[in-house]
């Protein structure tokens, strides 16, 4: 029994190490390609670590396209999205979990049902509306909807959290004469800070990584985001692999850092959502 237990552990560990390596190799390959010369890229056998590493690829990569401009654009859109989601999602989640009113269950069902609508179904009319407003080639179509939505999953997450807060807390405040908005902003929001961080992270990833939205709405190259700009290292029949991989590495770093610092909160929040058996 003990020997069997031991074997299972050793075997499991070996499999997990192997899987981790397989999952990491493409990222390592991206990075190591980013510090090679073109001559070191197309070789057999492959070069795992170029000698010397061509760090200047990073300088070349950020000068090859308006990298600073695109970073700024991406940051503006990302911050706009986070602000928008943090504004709208907790508000509606509070409405359907902490205020006892007749429409709240219908509203909740409506929010959940929005996940069953494929993006292409709404994409064209929304594009037409924004183009009639003259908002194409601006960041507005990529930011303003966040202030008027919040995302079904985020709202669901927040609702589950609000439900765990005892009613007595807001009742006591109400008796003390606190306004509904006062209760919301002074008592509730501070209590759900951990989940607001998780939502900010999801929103950050969504906005930072978004490709289809910018592709549709941003046609002027000066307005591009990093995700769009990465395409510019490729021409019709040629790819600047080392520079593309250098730029990709820079684009990827913030996502990995953000994930690393919040991963435990993410796992806990998934457990707490009731997204469980």
């Amino acid at each position, binding site marked *: 029994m003990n020997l069997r237990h031991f074997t299972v552990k050793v075997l499991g560990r070996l499999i997990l190490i192997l899987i981790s390596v397989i999952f990491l190799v493409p990222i390592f390959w991206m990075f190591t390609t980013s510090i090679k010369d073109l001559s070191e890229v*197309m070789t057999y056998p492959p070069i795992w670590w170029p000698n010397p590493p061509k760090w200047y690829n990073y300088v070349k990569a950020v000068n090859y396209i308006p990298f600073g401009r695109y970073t700024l654009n991406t940051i503006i859109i990302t911050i706009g999205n986070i602000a928008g989601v943090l504004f709208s999602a907790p508000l509606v989640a509070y409405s*359907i979990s902490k205020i*006892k009113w007749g429409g709240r269950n219908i509203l909740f069902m409506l929010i959940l049902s929005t996940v069953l609508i494929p993006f292409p179904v709404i994409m064209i009319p929304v594009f037409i509306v924004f183009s009639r407003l003259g908002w194409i080639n601006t960041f507005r179509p990529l930011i303003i909807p966040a202030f*008027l*939505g*919040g995302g079904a999953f985020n709202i669901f997450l927040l609702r589950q959290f609000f439900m765990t807060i005892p009613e007595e807390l807001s009742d006591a405040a109400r008796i003390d004469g606190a306004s509904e908005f006062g209760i919301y902003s002074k008592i509730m929001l501070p209590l759900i800070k951990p989940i607001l961080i998780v939502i900010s992270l999801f929103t950050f990833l969504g906005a930072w990584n978004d490709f289809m939205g910018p592709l549709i709405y941003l046609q002027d190259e000066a307005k591009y985001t990093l995700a769009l700009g990465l395409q510019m290292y490729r021409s019709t029949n040629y790819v600047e692999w080392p520079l593309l991989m250098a730029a990709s590495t820079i684009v990827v770093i913030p996502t990995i850092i953000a994930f690393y610092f919040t991963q435990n909160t993410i796992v806990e929040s998934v457990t707490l959502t*009731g997204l469980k*058996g």
Partner: protein
Amino acid sequence: MKAGTSRRNTLYGILFALPWIIGFLAFTAYPILASLYYSLTEFVGIGTPKWIGSGNYQALLKDELFWKSLYNTVYYVSLAVPIGFVVGLGLALLLNMDLKEVGLYRTLVYIPYVLPAVVVGFIWLWMLNPYYGLLNLFLNTVFHIQGPGWFSDPKWAKPAFVMLAQWGAGGSAVIFLAAIKDVPRELLESAEIDGAGWWTKFSKIIIPMISPVILYHLITALFGGFQIFTTAYIATNGGPANATLFYVLYLYRNAFQYSKMGYASAMAWILFIIVLILTLIIFRTSARWVFYRGGGE
């Protein structure tokens, strides 16, 4: 409750939900109806849509590329969803092992899931390069076999996307893992005392207990699969020989490259109906295999 309180609550309820309600009307409800209307018109995006009734739908039935893109997508979904389920659940079971460094594996396996789809597309375009890609170099060196052309071979391009999708399996694995961790320990322990083996515990306790999460996973995976776009746009842009012209890619081209907004809207509605029917089927059958714990919320 006094009538005054309830009126006050309704007022505040609506007030707090107002941003969402406005957004829902402007960016969901109106677009759904407008897209249905556009699908019955000839519309280039500017000017007035011209009513043509079922013209777009009739034209789609005769459009070879439409059928091709539907076939490609169904092919992809029917491989990527089941494989993704097995890989995600398998990973979760491994990550549920009692090892002290298991958190590290969880982190490493999750990382690819947070990467931008554009970067994922480019990384795999490079990894799967027929001549200098790492995978074929590996196959050649270790197994002495010549790997396929992957994204440049019509036969291998779709399987390549299925493989690429598995790189993000850490995302579903973490959700499965959270559900598995939530299975009551006593249940598994008492089963062990009764002499239940590994497979019995897995199939008779863990699977039923996490079945709501499985249902959630299947539906989101189905939706994600049918909407595959960015990685395909980057890695193949539909090629070779339209082997990876996926549904949304063709829809995007019609809408934004050929300015056939009405035609693309008809495609969007067909997609909508397909995924709704599939979701409905899954929900219908789920009564038989999804187990909800009693006494919950």
